[in-house]
């Protein structure tokens, strides 16, 4: 039986359109969802900042529950092995001139 109190998790993570999909191993159960997202942005080559340099906010949506996870949730509490996540940004289109 997997002890999710301390074990690391394997996940499948995609971007909004599913054009990028990554298998993730060893996601630390004691880490937070926010820390996971921050780490994955770099690994998945997703932009961290908007053109003005302000950080973009991404939310992770877990397919199993159909909800957006809170950044402060503990990975071991919120996720199960094999969960599929989508990283969805709050992002502006607009006249940045």
């Amino acid at each position, binding site marked *: 039986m997997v002890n999710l109190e301390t074990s690391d998790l394997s996940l499948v993570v995609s971007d909004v359109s599913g054009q990028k999909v990554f298998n993730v*191993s060893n996601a630390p159960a004691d880490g937070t969802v926010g820390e996971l997202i921050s780490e994955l942005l770099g690994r998945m080559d997703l932009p961290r900042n908007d053109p003005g340099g302000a950080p973009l906010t991404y939310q992770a949506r877990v397919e199993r529950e159909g909800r957006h996870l809170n950044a402060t949730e503990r990975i071991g509490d919120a996720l199960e092995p094999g969960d599929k996540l989508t990283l969805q940004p709050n992002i502006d289109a607009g006249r940045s001139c």
Partner: protein
Amino acid sequence: MLSPTHHFALALFRPGGSYLGTVPAKLDFGPAHEWTRFRFQRRGELPLDGDSTARVLPLWNRDIGEPYCRGYRVEIPRDGEQPLSADFPLIHFGEVAKLAASLFVEKGLLVEGDQYSYRLLAFPAENDPPKPGGITVSNASPGLPARDGSLDTLRAWATPVGVEDCDDMPVFVSRQVLREAEEQTLAQRGTETGGILFGNLWRDTDSGEIFAEVTAQIPAEHTHGTEVKLTFTAQTWAAVDAALRLRGLGECYLGYYHSHPVHVWCAKCEPEKQKTCRLAKTFFSSDDEAVMRAAFPRAYSIALVVNDTAFGISFSMFGNREGQLQPRGYYVMED
């Protein structure tokens, strides 16, 4: 995945040639990488489901040599064969140079509006050893979801719009999609609105060319629109995904559209100017580009802008050409 072989930097100079300083130059090589890979996939020289590993290499200046560059190269390795590559010009660093110049303005070394020149430099990157422990990732991205089809069949009953560039993948948009985008724009007149574009990718059975067919648009809900901005939220993407799944037609994400309320932006100009103004025709802001980068990174993705001008509605399409989002032509499939 892109492997860095060098760090890039920009040396800036005043008009007389006096040296201002050198700053690190971070360019997003993702679009150039995506375009390079897609270019060779379209030519049949890379498989549609191949690995996306590539290197970025400096192209040394032919006159003054290393460490000065005339541009950069994206190189894609192939097992047992010569790598495939595409070269990109120095001008790609233009926006990075502008940012660097603004730093020198802040330091008082340049005055706002001063001209400057720049040179690109590259220095070998030292690869940091991998950190022990920590998460590991492997790329499981799907290959191009292209099915066999006939380009000639679609061309036969489609109307070309704009300039067709042979470097661009042919894109066909249904008249119904344009009609719905126009209706959405007029329903929210004065503020930016938009939606997501879906459809199919095809591979022509005769030539092997990849082409896209935009079959549907889903209005973006849970957005915040103003006359100069449209915010897509996490809830927007979730709702769109649910709608796509409900359709159940096996369509893929092809990009997005949004409106530009030009008649509001240009209210103080002579209305006649909206016929030729860049804002009404070929304007795609860095924020507009950022949405593509974050949500639709593949080079086959396209963006449609609905220009709402004093003279009515027009459409502009943008796509990745040579590593940059540029205006492009397309075909309209009549009902």
